[in-house]
């Protein structure tokens, strides 16, 4: 399809996206997702607040298919929106294009004064897949300090990111947080279950279960079991 045809098709879909008929709107959102043309992003963002659930869902799925830096920029802006549905939608879209969004997040939102934004950033970064070694290293380097974040939920999210992307190098930082509340202990233990390599497995077995609260002990047992299963 040449660019003129594409533009014409887009315009028709834009028109349908604001139709009074909900089925038109839903199908238009779906079709825009398939076309995945950048120009559709602002309009699809509007449809995130459509009164009909099916249309909102279609718009969300469509946005996920627009994997462009521009989409990431707009979605990151929504992370500080007053509207909870928009924030959540932005989070979900960014998680679907996490690798694309990572560099932007690492450069700013990760250090936001808002604990919520720091946490959102971490939740997105955790989803990034197919990363190069360099990209992974950068993530670990930038996220590691947040394990000591004053907000415990942010610290926990940071631990989850390191569980996903980290290697043996971060084990000590993680173990240091076993002195925290049970919530953090469980995150540390689960992280150690995921980090590749013998050192992580050994550090699990070296944790004295008797010093742990019952819930953390449950996590420890499961972590050790899961490492055995993976071996």
């Amino acid at each position, binding site marked *: 399809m040449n660019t003129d045809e594409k533009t014409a098709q887009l315009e028709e879909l834009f028109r349908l996206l604001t139709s009074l008929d909900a089925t038109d709107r839903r199908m238009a959102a779906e079709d825009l997702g398939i076309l995945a043309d950048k120009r559709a992003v602002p309009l699809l963002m509007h449809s995130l607040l459509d009164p009909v659930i099916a249309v909102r869902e279609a718009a969300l799925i469509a946005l996920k298919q627009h994997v462009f830096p521009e989409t990431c920029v707009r979605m990151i802006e929504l992370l500080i929106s007053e509207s909870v549905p928009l924030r959540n939608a932005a989070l979900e879209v960014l998680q679907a294009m996490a690798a694309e969004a990572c560099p932007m997040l690492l450069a700013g939102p990760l250090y936001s004064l808002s604990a*919520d934004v720091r946490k959102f950033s971490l939740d997105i970064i955790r989803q990034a897949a197919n990363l190069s070694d360099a990209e992974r290293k950068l993530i670990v380097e930038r996220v590691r300090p947040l394990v000591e974040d004053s907000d415990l939920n942010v610290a926990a999210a940071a631990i989850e990111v390191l569980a996903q992307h980290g290697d043996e190098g971060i084990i000590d930082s993680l173990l240091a947080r076993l002195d925290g509340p049970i919530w953090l202990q469980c995150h540390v233990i689960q992280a150690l279950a995921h980090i590749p390599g013998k050192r992580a497995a050994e550090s699990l077995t070296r944790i004295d279960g008797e010093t742990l609260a019952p*819930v953390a002990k*449950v996590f420890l047992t499961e972590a050790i079991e899961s490492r055995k299963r993976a071996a």
Partner: protein
Amino acid sequence: MSQKTSLAESMLHILVVDDSQIARSFHIAALAQAGYACSAAESGAEAIELALRKPFDAIVTDLNMPRMDGYELSKRLRALEGYAETPILMITSEREDHDRMRAMNCGVNTYITKPIEPDTLCYQLGLLIGKRARTL
């Protein structure tokens, strides 16, 4: 995380709703320690479906979930047959008083802020369930 759930009829059955796997495992481990049987849902929509299929004695739900948050879930649960009085405990990272009001308006009985201590969760839930039992 495998979780032993007893089929004994005398056990109270709690539905834990949270989009985070680790949070679900944590809350279920805490509740299981206190002798509750638990089921888990990843989202509000899933929670409603489970709640319709079987009756739960209480709901523990996170506030901040995608698509349907804890307020919305609570409102919808209250509208279901048999759930008008079911204890709902919400886990939130917010502390402001106006949120407390909204939680109450949506039918949430109690909320606790995370990160939670297992004892706190079980204590608060126990209070709610005890309160309910006394009014029956």
